[in-house]
């Protein structure tokens, strides 16, 4: 017993003697998706870097709560060294001067390391890199092939345009009282996605003006009305629709690709839930982009020694090895090009997950920033956008309503 005690004491002394060990604190949110993944990432990293210890904070319930906690911790002076935050929320931290720019660490070899221009754009503001994407998702179409067949359509010749999709949705909708053709959430990110599919942008290049009151914006918003009047879209909330899709009563649903795993599990053996890319409605395909949801990692510590250790951790989790762990565990698309290009990492995974390949190549090809509107009213106006989409879905004239919305936003955001 005594010897055991001494052995333990010696072991403790030995680990603390190997000294130069740095500890970094990591914050993350949404344990339902991330808990196991975070453990796996930390273990894999520490195995490669025995001199760095990763301590994971208790997770926040969701990204909104996570940012709140980081703000509180910054007031109290107990900010963690590294944090995973929502891709549309890191600018809240940036605007309060909490994030440390990463340009010095990235150097000029970013492209070689798998950080493509599109992927870097997710964490860039005014020419500085403040965040790196860690997981990504874009808007895709979830389709119930059984309903498509019953409505006389075919999965092989599935329509590639919004007009075609709406036509098919109308036929599915006509199948029965409790069967719906199509659904999309009335929500800022969904609207930005449809806008991007039409080649439009929410803000002007220098972010000094609203840009969605364009032809593309009006057509994108108009889809909400056409989905209702032609495609039979009901006024579901997101929870209601997320129950209807796996239950097999909804034909086509535009949703985040991050829900793929959950929907597949929900549908089970009842039908073969299929993921298809969102149609592109712009004549110039180069103008198309899809605002990307998911998470980013930011560097918060200003201590030089801990920054070095933290950067090692950040480049590990955004590098191919870390990304492989994230993709296999969460269902998100990777935010590193190497891991997709080199079959050694995920080749086997994609062979068994056709849906994932569709979703992930859409991210790789068309990832773009999820615009957050500038200034203190930035988050609040996203709810005004959602409310305008409700109005349009319920019959308001798309052109007039979109122009009115743009004017309201200009005033709210102090652009006028």
């Amino acid at each position, binding site marked *: 017993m005594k010897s055991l005690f001494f052995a333990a004491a010696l072991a403790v002394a030995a680990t603390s003697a190997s000294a130069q060990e740095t500890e970094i604190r990591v914050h993350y949110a949404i344990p339902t998706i991330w808990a196991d993944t975070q453990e796996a990432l930390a273990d894999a990293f520490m195995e490669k870097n025995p001199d760095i210890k990763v301590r994971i904070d208790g997770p926040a319930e969701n990204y909104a709560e996570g940012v*709140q906690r980081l703000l509180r911790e910054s007031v109290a002076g107990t900010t963690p060294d590294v944090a995973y935050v929502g891709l549309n929320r890191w600018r809240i931290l940036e605007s*309060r001067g909490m994030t440390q720019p990463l340009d010095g660490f990235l150097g000029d070899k970013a492209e070689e390391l798998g950080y493509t221009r599109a992927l870097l754009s997710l964490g860039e503001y005014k020419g500085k890199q403040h965040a790196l994407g860690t997981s990504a998702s874009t808007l895709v179409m979830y389709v119930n092939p059984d309903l498509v067949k019953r409505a006389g359509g075919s999965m092989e010749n599935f329509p590639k345009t919004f007009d075609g999709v709406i036509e098919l949705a109308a036929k599915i909708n006509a199948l029965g009282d*409790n069967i719906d053709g199509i659904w999309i959430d009335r929500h800022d990110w969904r609207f930005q996605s449809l806008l991007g599919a039409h080649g439009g942008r929410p803000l002007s290049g220098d972010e000094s003006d609203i840009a969605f009151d364009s032809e593309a914006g009006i057509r994108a918003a108009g889809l909400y009305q056409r989905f209702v009047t032609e495609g039979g879209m009901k*006024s579901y*909330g997101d929870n*209601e629709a997320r129950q209807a899709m796996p239950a097999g009563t909804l034909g086509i649903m535009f949703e985040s690709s991050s829900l793929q795993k959950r929907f597949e599990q929900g549908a089970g053996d009842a039908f073969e839930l299929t993921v298809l890319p969102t149609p592109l409605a712009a004549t110039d395909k180069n103008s198309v982009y899809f605002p990307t949801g998911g998470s980013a990692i930011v560097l918060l510590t200003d201590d030089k020694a801990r920054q070095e250790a933290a950067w090692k951790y950040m480049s590990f989790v955004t590098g191919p090895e870390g990304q492989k762990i994230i993709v296999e565990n969460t269902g998100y698309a990777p935010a590193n090009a190497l891991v997709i290009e080199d079959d050694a990492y995920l080749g086997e995974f994609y062979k068994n997950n056709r849906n994932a390949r569709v979703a992930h190549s859409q991210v790789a090809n068309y990832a773009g920033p999820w615009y957050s509107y500038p200034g203190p009213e930035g*988050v609040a106006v996203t709810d005004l956008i*959602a409310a305008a989409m409700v109005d349009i879905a319920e019959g308001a004239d798309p052109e007039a309503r979109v122009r009115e919305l743009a004017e309201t936003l200009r005033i709210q955001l102090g652009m006028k």
Partner: protein
Amino acid sequence: MIRLSRNVRDGLTDFWLAGPATLAMIVFIFVPVLVVAVLSFTDYQFGARDFVWIGLGNYSKLFGSALGQKAITNTLLYVALVIPASVGLGLFVAIGLHRMLDWAPRLSHLLRTVYFLPVAATLVAMSVAWQMVLHPSLGVVNQFLTLLGGEPKSWLSDRGLVLYTLAVIGVWQTVGYNMILFLAGLTSIPPELYDAADVDGAGGGWSRFWTVTWPLLGPTTLFVLVVTATNAFRVFETVATLTKGGPAFASDTLVYALYREGFVYFKAGYSSAITMVFFAFLLVLTIAQFRIVERRVHYK
């Protein structure tokens, strides 16, 4: 050893008994409320390093903007629906169960438990159940409606309906609690009074109710009213879990708005102003109820 007079000793005992709780109240309630009151005159953003005094700016925004007014009118409508319905139904059920005690005591006890279940259950968990029951195509309610030849409704996503749906859920949740309180009130009415009423010629059901039951339930009713009103004003869980204030702010309420502005939009100053208005509403309501109802309450 100094001998303290009896009065001083009594005073010290009182101080020991009430002191710690009072101190806790001051530190944990009054001081934070004061801070919130001060913040409500600033444009403070959560996590920001500085702020600007903007006087009554936040208040004029709350009362002047369409969204602020909507949150206020929605809350008032919700309260106006829930208070009478849940107090009335609570009393109704309590009288029924009280009389049932005479001829079917077991059934009465069983029903009492059933009515109390929603109170004991967590509202957030119950909201999930409600969501499934009210689902536009999969829910029991709409399937029953179509069976009867009715038109299915979007209970939680129709702008004109959503607030009424939430009010019904609110009533469902509070009826059981009010019923228990009224039952306690009913059992404490001495039976001799009914005999006396009989002798005085008030033998019918209605006149017994108006001359004996209702006046003696006065204190209970006052308490029930105050509790129901404060709970109705604080409506939050159902809004947050079922509708998130939507669609298009149709079910936005004061407490949900203050949560949204403060914790989602990070506008601590504005959300502090909403909090102060919310306090004011509650205070006015409670004082009014005590003033009005107390005049008619016959204490023993």
